[in-house]
């Protein structure tokens, strides 16, 4: 069975072509406002080309992500982000008890039970939005690449610091540091640190956390300095699958294929 999952993120569109539980094609392109549908169609075609398929050979297309309603015309079904993230975690790191998904705009923490069902979900509050956007924007402002930003490892004390309230105050503080002629690398480290704090508030908001096997997903897994800082700040070990960036798209493709879909059983407490 051949299925396609499309993740319409605010920054990037990710596509995974799946056949018999194997990824045979993938694609990634910049997202962006009104051009999202056109960009999705283009990257869909290139992913199919990579897989060596024609459009009529694809049986099902499921979409997820913030821009999922844009591509309704292409989609067989629309899946919300937590469900695809949980499904991808179940596939990529079986036995995951906690899923932590950090993207450009949204940060999300899930607790899974032993059947890989979501028992709790926390999404960032409104002021903590845009962790990935913030890092991307500050990299451009400081004229550094995202790799160079991690040159000075983030530290909690004894360095320049920026506000962890929201991206507005954080950016303002970073620019004040530039005004004081602090080296860009040190400002970058402060920026990464504040992004870590803002992302970790989400996972700390879980009321019944189970950190036995935490799986980290989302675009920010590609930023090594950020991941290292997050590990040390939360004092947790993460499993980061190879496909972490494509995870929501993969989850959508898996759901389209009906992989691991179990019949729903009423919880015992609800029956009585």
């Amino acid at each position: 069975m051949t299925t396609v999952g499309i993740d319409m993120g605010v920054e990037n569109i990710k596509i995974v072509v799946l056949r018999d539980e194997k990824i045979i094609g993938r694609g990634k392109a910049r997202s962006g406002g009104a051009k999202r549908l056109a960009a999705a169609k283009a990257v869909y075609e290139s992913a199919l080309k990579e897989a060596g398929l024609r459009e009529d050979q694809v049986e099902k297309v499921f979409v997820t992500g913030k821009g999922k309603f844009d591509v309704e015309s292409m989609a067989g079904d629309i899946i919300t982000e937590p469900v695809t993230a949980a499904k991808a975690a179940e596939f990529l790191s079986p036995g995951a008890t906690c899923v932590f998904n950090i993207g450009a705009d949204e940060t999300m923490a899930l607790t899974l039970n032993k059947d890989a069902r979501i028992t709790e979900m926390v999404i960032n509050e409104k002021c903590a939005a845009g962790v990935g956007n913030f890092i991307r924007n500050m990299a451009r402002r400081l004229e550094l690449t995202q790799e160079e930003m991690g040159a000075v490892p983030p530290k909690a004390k004894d360095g320049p610091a920026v506000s962890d309230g929201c991206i507005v105050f954080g950016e303002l503080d970073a620019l004040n540091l530039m005004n004081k002629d602090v080296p860009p690398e040190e400002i970058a480290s402060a920026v990464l640190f504040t992004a870590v704090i803002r992302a970790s508030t989400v996972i700390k908001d879980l009321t019944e956390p189970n950190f036995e096997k935490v799986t980290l997903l989302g675009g920010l897994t590609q930023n090594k300095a950020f991941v290292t800082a997050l590990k040390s700040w939360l004092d947790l070990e993460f499993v980061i699958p190879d496909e972490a960036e494509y995870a929501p798209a993969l989850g959508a493709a898996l759901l389209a294929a009906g992989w691991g879909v179990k019949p729903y059983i009423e919880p015992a407490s609800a029956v009585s």
Partner: protein
Amino acid sequence: MEQEYWKWPESSWTSKEIDWKSAKAVTAGVDVGTTGTQAAIMCDEKLFGYANIHTGGSFKKSAKIAVEKAMGASGMALTDIRGIMGTGAGGRNVEFAGGFMDGVRCQGRGARFLYGPEVHTVVDLGGQSCTAIRLYDWDRVWDFMMNDKCATGIGRNIEFMCDMLQVPIQEIGPMSLEVETDPEPVATSCYCFADTETMGLFGRPEYRSAPLTENEVYAKYLFAVAWRCLSTIGKLQPMDVGDIRIHYPELGFTGGLAKNPGITKRIERELKITALTSEYDPQLAGAIGAALLAPAETDRRQRQ
């Protein structure tokens, strides 16, 4: 190489007619903003050269590059300039400057140069801050008002949103005006909320019966920016206290966003006025003002 939608064009110009060697006073102003850096060189209160560049990772370097571009191939050296004044959010980083002056006075003075003596209200729409300035008949600031802390970074954020929405920064303003009626703005408190709301507007199920067009989304976003500026302008003291009337006579926009009609036209519409126009780039106002104020300020400091 992907297209960089956020990049506004840089510019520089040096006069070929003015002979700077015979000028009595050669002064310069450097306005280091968080988004753009401008330098202006004045010979006897006439514009001799200017440069308008993106601010890089180091404010010091950006200031130097801007002045060098403004001097161009005229053969002028930094030592030939009698007074150099730094201004703007990063103005204290102009190492070769004789002094630093706050942006309000420089923008006011620069606006008088740009728009002539009739300008009485100046609205500086910058990358970091929105400042409303009211001037006396002579070149002095009567009253000014800065934006709230949450309303900071409006100009910077337009760069960022153009990058995210993949729309060229010079076109977002004109495109946003191509709507029949202006839709309600997105969140007007801070750009963090406005960004999240704007990026989620496309293809939203709530709008399925009457989907928002691309231009309407830009209109909603830029109206929120204009709204934040309007709240700053509205806090200026009223002009006529006897019969308290608030009006904004002879208003001139300065700063980078003055070149975005999506914002200026909306402010003009809400205030029921028509803004003054100038042959010069309104973004240069701060640098020109600093250059014009440099000699007097340097003399005063030497006397003290």
